[in-house]
Each structure stands twice: as C-alpha cells, then as structure tokens.
C-alpha cells in the first residue's frame, strides 16, 4: 500500500540487488506479468471475434434477442440473466478485495469469511454459465425457419404449449390410442428437424405415428435474418405470420427449422458466432473454475493458519489478483457478446 517506500536504502544495498525497483515482492510481480500475458490472449481472442464480425456477410446475432430467458420464468427477459451473472461476479470480486484488506490487518477470521464468500460466488457464476450454455445449445421453442422464398427468419411471440401426442398408428413401443405425455418438446423439435411432422401428425422414434395436440401460437412475428426472393434482412412479418410458421414446421421437409447452436449450425446467426461464443466464454469459464480451485486451496491454508504464522497474507493478495482479472475479462466479454 502507501507505506511501500518507507524503508530507506543506501546506494550500497540498492546496487547489491537488495531492493526491487517496483517496491513489490517477486511473487506479486510475476503474477502481474502472467496476467499481462493472459490479457493479451483474451485480447487476441476478442479481436479475432471482431475481425470475423466485420468480415461476415450475414446479420450478426443481437444480444437481447439471443439471450432473453430466465430459469423457471421462460422467455421475454432480455439480458436480465447475464446481468445477474455479471452482478454475481462483481460481488465475488468485492468479497475478494475485502479478504485482502482483512489480511493486511492480520484478521484471520475476516480473511476466512470473505474468501469463503468469494468461492461461493465463483461457484454460482460457473453454474450460471452452465445454464446459459445449456440454453444456447438447446435453443428457443420456435427455432429459426426457412421460408418458402428461401429467406431465413427467427420467430418471436408466445409458443403454444404442447398438450400431448395421441398415437394413431402403432410402432415398436407405442400402441394405438396411447397418449404420450412425456418429453414432448424434445420429440417435437427432433421430428421437425428431420422432416417428420406433417399435417400435425408426428412420426416418433419407434416409427409410430401420433396426432399432436398443441395450443395456438400467439403474437407471432417473423424477423428476417437472411435474404430470400421476397423478404429481405431486417424485415418484420406480422400479418399471417402464425400460418406461415405452421406451414414451415408441417412441411415434412428436413432441415428447414434449426433449434439451438452447436459447431455446425446456429439458430441465432452465422456458425462463427457460436464457435467464438463457445471458445471465449468457455475459456473464461475455465479461468473462473481454476480460480475457484486456487481460492479453495488458499482458503484451506488460511484456515490452517499458515499465513498467520508467516506474518503476512500475500498469497491471498496474489490469488486475489487472478480473481479480479477474471472479473475484468468478463466485463469485456459481456460488452462484446451481449451488448454491442
């Protein structure tokens, strides 16, 4: 802190290699150098993302359209979930500063308390990221559709709930007249992707055919994302949109609807977006995870009393630097993946 420079040295000891020109210990300095190199890695990745985005020919996904869900509450909450994640990470950064501050007062109980809070915050963040990935991979209820003129559109509105499938033609497992009530949305999506839904009749995994009972979609709007013969990118189609949507999913043609994102297809936009999303948020999530592990190991030694015997809590400060860095990277990921 501010009293770094209080120790006076004559030139003899200074030239003897006794002092650091930065008035900082070796360990902290090396942590800073590591963080600079890690920051260059993340900088390079984000700039590569920027390059791809600028070079890309089709519409780039928009944050508030792509990430608009909350656990248990469904869709229609743009950016709220990621805001919550950001808040969790900021708070866990704060508890880490408080742990470092307690260390400077040799307050062992304080360090323990705040480090434990930091670890819990970190675990919550990693868990939230897992949910975010799960959601991104599985996609929306509607999916992205290819219209009759070749244009592609994402669908907004309220998806009609699937009530059940009534089997009309027996297969290996299901008998005629049986009513299927489980795993409906997943089977529904799978069938549509493979062109196995026609005239509201779905062909299930075992070859049986069933009638789909589904509530009407409401407030359907198609937002065009790729040009076709009739519709152009950016256009919004409202009149007759619900009928057009039903026509597409009932066409019985495979690959006209895409759900979610992976390394090959992406409901929200170009596949490069998903690749960068997985790589950068994954690399960041790995940093968070390893940060939690480091924090936990140091926490155990704090509890054991090792740093108290040593006379200073510099290890907490060093792992703290790493932890703040993770927060710092997230600030940039948040802006470039979700906001702009």
């Amino acid at each position, binding site marked *: 802190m501010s009293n770094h420079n209080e120790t006076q040295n004559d030139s003899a000891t200074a030239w003897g290699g006794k002092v650091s020109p930065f008035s900082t210990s070796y360990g902290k300095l090396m942590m800073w150098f590591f963080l600079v190199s890690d920051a260059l890695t993340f900088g390079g990745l984000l700039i590569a993302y920027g390059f791809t985005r600028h070079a890309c020919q089709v519409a780039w996904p928009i944050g508030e359209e792509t990430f608009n869900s909350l656990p248990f509450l469904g869709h229609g909450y743009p950016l709220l979930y990621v805001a919550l994640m950001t808040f969790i990470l*900021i708070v866990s950064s704060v508890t880490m500063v408080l742990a470092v501050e307690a260390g400077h007062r040799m307050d062992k109980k304080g360090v323990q308390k705040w480090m434990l809070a930091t670890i819990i915050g970190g675990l919550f963040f990693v868990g939230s990221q897992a949910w975010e990935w799960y959601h991104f991979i599985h996609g929306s209820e509607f999916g992205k559709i290819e219209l009759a003129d070749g244009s592609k559109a994402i669908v907004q509105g309220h998806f009609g709930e699937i009530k059940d499938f009534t089997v009309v033609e027996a297969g290996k497992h299901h008998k005629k007249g049986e009513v299927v009530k489980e795993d409906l949305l997943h089977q529904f999506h799978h069938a549509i992707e493979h062109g196995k839904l026609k005239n509201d009749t779905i062909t299930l995994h075992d070859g049986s055919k069933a009638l789909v009972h589904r509530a009407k979609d409401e407030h359907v709007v198609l937002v065009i994302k790729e040009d076709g013969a009739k519709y152009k990118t950016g256009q919004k189609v409202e009149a007759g949109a619900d009928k057009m949507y039903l026509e597409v999913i009932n066409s019985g043609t495979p690959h006209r609807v895409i759900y979610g994102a992976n390394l090959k297809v992406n409901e929200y936009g170009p596949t490069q977006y998903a690749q960068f999303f997985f790589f950068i948020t994954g690399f960041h999530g790995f940093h968070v995870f390893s940060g939690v592990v480091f924090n936990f190991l140091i926490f155990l030694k704090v509890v054991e009393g090792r740093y108290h015997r040593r006379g200073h809590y510099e290890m907490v400060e060093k792992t703290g630097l790493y932890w703040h860095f993770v927060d710092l990277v997230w*600030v940039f990921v948040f802006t470039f993946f979700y906001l702009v």
Partner: protein
Amino acid sequence: MERDDIIEYSLHTHHDEATGVDLRKKIWKVTGLLTLITAVEVIIGATIHQDHNLWEMVKWGFIILTIVKAFFIVMSFMHLGDEKKTLRYVILLPYFVFILYLIFICLTEGNAVHAALKSIGF
C-alpha cells in the same frame, strides 16, 4: 534457507483498523459504481435496439462504460493505483500499444475482407 538481506515487501503492506475502515468504505463505493454502470447498460441494451437511430452513439457509450469499469477494477480492486508509477507503466503501456495496434489492423482488415467477399458476390 532464510535470507536476511532481502526486503520483505509483503510485511510493509499491513495497515491498522482505522485505515481499514476508510479502505472498506472506498471498496463499497466502487462496488456501488460498478453495479450502477452494469444496471444502466442492461436497461439501455434492453430498450434501445440496433435498428434505432441512436444506436451508433449507444454502442460507443457501452464501450466507454466498459473501459470505465475496467479502470476501476484494475486501479482499485487490483490495487494497481497504489503501486509505484514505474510498475504501472511497465504493465499498462506495452499492453495498450500492442492491443490498440491489433484492434486497428484487424478491424480494418475485417472490413476489407467484407468488401472483397461482397464484390465477388459471396
């Protein structure tokens, strides 16, 4: 092996309870600020869309707010503001020189590739 000729800088970072009270006050202030900035960003992000005519301004606003947040995290939470000036520059200057150049060259090239692909009707 214990060496007594090396300055143990870690021992000079201790402070008393009174300083601690001040420091904690500052930490909570910075926390409030970071939370406020994030909240403002999310509200603007959810209300002003990319087809809005203010979008270009909003976009630059987001980038500036991000740098403000980064500044507070590095200077306050990571205590770089309390370190010696030389250390501050050794860390920040090479980074900024390199990263600004990389941003410039990659985005320029990205735009050029975009134009080239478009001209051949990709």
